[in-house]
């Protein structure tokens, strides 16, 4: 039973990193990202491909963050100079094309077979209790990221981001190069998704294009919206709520035994969609509203 909770905790940590990344983009700056899962996938595949070929974990970590962040910067720069609302389609398109790439470029990604036997950091040092160690590792990462981002939130940089979200013209009149700030915010969020990908790949040890479906992006949106957009604590709380929901609905299977697996999965996704819409209509500030400071 305790191993079950360790697994749950690790996933909460990974989702929390993703939600924190989205929070910088949407919660702080108001930039929409419908392809978050793409940057997550970039992180996971970068580190997996390096480490299965015997490269050190530090190299995997560096590439996971750098590659996802630079692709995030590229996407942001191509789109944001002209029309902010096109970011919705460009990010969605990016994650879809990336999935096509992962499926079709066998020579690099092993296609739909995926990458197996991804090594786990410091595995040899533990004869038992490794999963607990990994949970702590992820937990420490979440804590560090949280502390940094909460400094960012009250820093001058964070204030500019929020000013852009509220009224970009005003921020521009105040002499801020809003384009640069927006690109930086988006890059930071994408890099965090890459970091989450690193922890995911080395936790599950097997990744394939099916691990990175568009639905995951929606899950993270639900987490952020439920927890409280613009609030870092809210993003983490949202990850907990999301995991509770995903696990809770798994037990539906025992209750509604007459539903097939496909129908059960569909019913669950319908609930996620309904939940997201109801949240945005009736409680847009989430459980933990943004702290005004």
């Amino acid at each position, binding site marked *: 039973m305790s191993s079950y909770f360790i697994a749950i905790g690790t996933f909460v940590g990974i989702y929390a990193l993703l939600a924190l990344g989205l929070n910088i983009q949407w919660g702080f700056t*108001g930039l*929409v990202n*419908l392809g978050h899962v793409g940057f997550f996938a970039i992180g996971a595949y970068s580190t997996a491909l390096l480490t299965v070929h015997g490269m050190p974990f530090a190299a995997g970590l560096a590439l996971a963050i750098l590659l996802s962040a630079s692709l995030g910067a590229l996407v942001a720069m*191509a*789109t944001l100079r*002209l*029309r*902010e*609302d*096109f970011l*919705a*389609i*460009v990010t*969605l*398109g*990016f994650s*879809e*094309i990336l999935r*096509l790439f992962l*499926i*079709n470029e066998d020579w690099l990604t092993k296609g739909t077979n995926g990458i197996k036997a991804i090594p786990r950091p410091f595995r040899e040092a533990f004869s038992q209790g490794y999963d607990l160690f990994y949970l702590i590792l992820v937990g420490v990462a979440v804590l560090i990221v949280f502390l940094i981002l909460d400094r960012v939130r009250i820093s001058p940089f964070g204030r500019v981001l929020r000013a852009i979200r509220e009224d970009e013209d005003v921020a521009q009149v105040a002499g801020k190069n809003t384009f640069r700030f927006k690109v930086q915010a988006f890059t930071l969020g994408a890099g965090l998704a890459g970091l989450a990908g690193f922890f995911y790949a080395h936790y599950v040890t097997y990744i394939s294009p099916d691990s990175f479906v*568009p*639905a995951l992006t*929606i899950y993270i*949106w639900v987490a952020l919206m439920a927890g409280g957009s613009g609030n870092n604590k809210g993003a983490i709380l949202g990850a907990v709520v999301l995991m509770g929901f995903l696990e809770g609905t798994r037990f539906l299977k025992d209750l509604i035994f007459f539903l097939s697996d*496909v*129908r059960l*999965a*569909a*019913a669950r*996704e*319908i609930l*996620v*969609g*309904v939940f*997201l*819409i109801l949240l*945005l*209509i009736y409680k*847009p500030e989430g459980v933990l509203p943004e702290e005004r400071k």
Partner: protein
Amino acid sequence: MNAFFQYFLNGIITGGILSLPAIGFSLLYKILRFPNFAFGSYLTCGAYTALAVNLVLGGSIVWGFAASLVVTAGVAITVDQLVFRNLRQRRPLTLAIVSIGAVFILENVIRFIWGGGLQYYRIPVYRDMYVLGIHMGREQSIILLASCIFMLLVEGLLKKTRLGKAMRALADNPLLAEIKGIDRERMVILISGVGGALAGASGVFLGIDTVIDPLMGFNVILSIFAAAILGGIGSARGAMGGAMVIGLAEELSLLLIPSTYKSAVGFGIIILILILRPGGFTKR
């Protein structure tokens, strides 16, 4: 050379199919200021409505087609009234996210009822026609004809009727149109209905031309978006022209790149437009 003309013909057919959902998408994008991704799902709803009539009730595809126009118009109006109307005062991008939530719901309702597998209509099989070495199915020629008729109807509606002029006025300059006494809410319902029906028709055509599955609408949303941007958002005629260009580009791309990346063509064009012509090709 034959291959070129074959792809060219396929491109025109794809363009015709894409043009129908692009019209409503583009007009509503301009009026409500957010991209409604649910248009892809309206297309899927249309395809499955016709499938229900065709397979379950045993009706012909023509009846299925008629039913899909009505049902999809209803779905589009219901989604607008139930979901988007409550959020009109919010930031437009919030609505884009909400529309993704609607995609999630519609797509999975279909999956819940029909499962995730591929489906086909039961339609009589005819021998393909060959003209100068280019082959064209009987269904394809009907799809081409029907989508041309629909485009002409839309053109007539928008240009000749009072209602159409009001729609265009609203899409051209929402603020001015409202000052002149055009009821925005009523127009949004009407355009949702007409746009939804057109998307439903497109779904049936796509189902006949390829296969029916719950993801079919989501898979063309990039192309619809690209068509709308290419034609200038808010222009129905632009959306139709844009769809033709996208359809042709997607099919002709097969001469150069593997077919697995066909759906990346729309995305590539969006990026090119963003870099070269942010206002599209007809406006500004």
